[in-house]
């Protein structure tokens, strides 16, 4: 089975994001593999372990995104490809989907393409579905349990109402949620392989496509309004008395 795991490099989840002059800034936060994408890599590796084949990690991004790809290699992916082109600066999710779909097609013979449920920087969560649409493949989103039997993929989707079982014929695009199970750590052997890996960088010319024009623009960005917080200690002789005062206060302030 030939499996692609699409991953993105994002600022560390501990980073503080601020809007500055209409631009989004994470300061000098370290860049890491998008945490959701680690679940995608884990799911891809488990399919490879169950059915044989190979896992290819693909990322669209700048040169630094090779670090995220190396993390995927260290987890056990067989190879990695960076798609990088100056013309891709400022591309939207639809453009990203076109580029990733072209890369998946260039890899050739791919059975399954795995994605994380969303990226923690943009939080759009639609790139997997858009990629599926460009490819013309079925989309199995929010997968928590994945079974592949012959050409048929069956997943349990983790949705608010509970679980939903859906199936489709491969090739298919899957997005993976946290319920799938903890992603593995890189192994030392994987770390050695990753640190020596020569990761090819494909340009738009290599993919044979031109820079996709963005259809969604970011005209403005703002910080959430800062809230005034006042702290008041409610005291009293006994827990019951404190609770009573608190309840009165909550009713008076119309919190409930």
């Amino acid at each position: 089975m030939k499996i692609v795991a699409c991953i993105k490099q994002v600022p560390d989840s501990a980073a503080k994001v601020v809007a500055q002059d209409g631009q989004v800034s994470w300061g000098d936060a370290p860049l890491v593999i998008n945490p959701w994408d680690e679940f995608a890599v884990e799911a891809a590796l488990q399919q490879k372990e169950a059915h044989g084949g190979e896992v290819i990690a693909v990322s669209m991004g700048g040169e630094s995104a090779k670090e995220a790809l190396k993390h995927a290699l260290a987890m056990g992916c067989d190879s990695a490809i960076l798609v990088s082109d100056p013309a891709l600066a400022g591309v939207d999710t639809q453009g990203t989907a076109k580029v990733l779909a072209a890369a998946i097609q260039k890899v050739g013979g791919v059975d399954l393409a795995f994605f994380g449920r969303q990226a923690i920087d943009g939080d759009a969560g639609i790139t997997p579905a858009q990629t599926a649409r460009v490819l013309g493949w079925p989309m199995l989103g929010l997968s928590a349990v994945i079974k592949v039997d012959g050409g048929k993929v069956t997943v349990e989707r983790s949705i608010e109402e509970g679980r939903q079982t859906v199936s489709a014929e491969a090739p298919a695009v899957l997005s993976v949620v946290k319920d799938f199970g903890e992603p593995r750590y890189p192994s030392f052997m994987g770390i050695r392989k990753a640190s020596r890996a020569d990761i090819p960088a494909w340009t738009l010319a290599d993919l044979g496509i031109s820079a996709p024009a963005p259809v969604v623009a970011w005209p403005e960005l703002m910080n959430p309004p800062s809230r005034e917080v006042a702290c008041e200690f409610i005291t009293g002789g006994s827990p019951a008395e404190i609770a009573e005062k608190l309840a009165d206060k909550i009713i008076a302030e119309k919190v409930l």
Partner: protein
Amino acid sequence: MDFSLSEEHKMAQKMVRDFAQKEVAPVIKEYDRKQEPIPWVLERMGELGILGICFPVKYGGQGMDYISLGLACEELEAVDTTLRVAMSVHTGLCGMTIFQWGTEKQKQEFLVPLAKGEKIGCGAFTEPGMGSDVAGMRTSAKRDSDVYILNGEKMWISLASKADLALVTAVTNPEAKRPSQRLSSFVVDLHSPGVTRGDLHGKLGVRAGSTGWINFQDVKVPVENRIGEEGEGFKITMSAFDSGRYTVGSGATGLVRAALEASVKYAKDRSAFGKPISEYQMIQQKIAKMLQDYEIARLLYLQVGWMKNEGRRSTLQTSYCKKFATEASFEAAHEAIQIHGAYGFSDEYDVERYLRNSRGAIIYEGSSEIQNIIQAGYALGERKDTPLRREMPAYDEKEWQG
């Protein structure tokens, strides 16, 4: 001179950090309070390859270098000292000593399962009546045709109740002219008849770790389990300390870092007299000292890691690293408590555990006084590194990863 870490080093460091922070940090307080080892932790460290990080792949290890071992110890002790203690005794005292002094057959038999984490090892030198004065130990090993009969008691042994194998040093020749020639070292299967053992409780620190006693009563140890020649036990034990002390020093560096990070965070959050206490120079001075000590300790252990990679003897440099880092970690934890005020005195925060955990390392694997004696010995020209019959192998990337 190149002070940068390789990409491989950084990824290994991050992997060990992620493990310790994600899996151990959330539960460590609970086990420390209960004075119980985390039941799954050794198995998990073995499975992830951490316990065998610095052994060649052909001996079941991960083929990483000695610097990676130090980095791993720093990350482990930044979360809890007991994790690093496992590296000191399983990987350092036991595994690395077999790697240095063992025959090929012994490495296959004993090192491979240790490196894979299938068996747990420890180092048993200290006795109820003797610690620093290694040559003065009493446990005896009497040769009886193809076995040695082991009798005596070892005390204060880390992982005593968890280990499958112990590197044990005992007296084989009480009549030898030089006290150091009285000793020999053995790999002892702790599941052998005649071995009894147990854990000590009421310890000041490393409460989530096993520290105990091992008693030997007419325990038969096959001659093939003797590491090195008869009479080489003192040298072998000193080699074991060269490995173990490196892990203690690099680990204590992680404890300095943990105290520093906790202090910075708290000092920024806590206000007194109308501003964050981080703005007071007296607090800044404490934090600056921790940062400086962290950097010194880190450079000292990386130097040792580099020397080990090169196959150079580093007894003196390891002594600097061990003494400096362990004392610095105690001071850093003490000042971190001061910065936390009354909250630092409570186990609601981690810094009181740091202080309790830091204290033992100033005693074990050669107390600070013993490190002073070693250093003064070199300074005064009374101590020189003479070649050993078996030196610690230099790191050879090709061979180790082959």
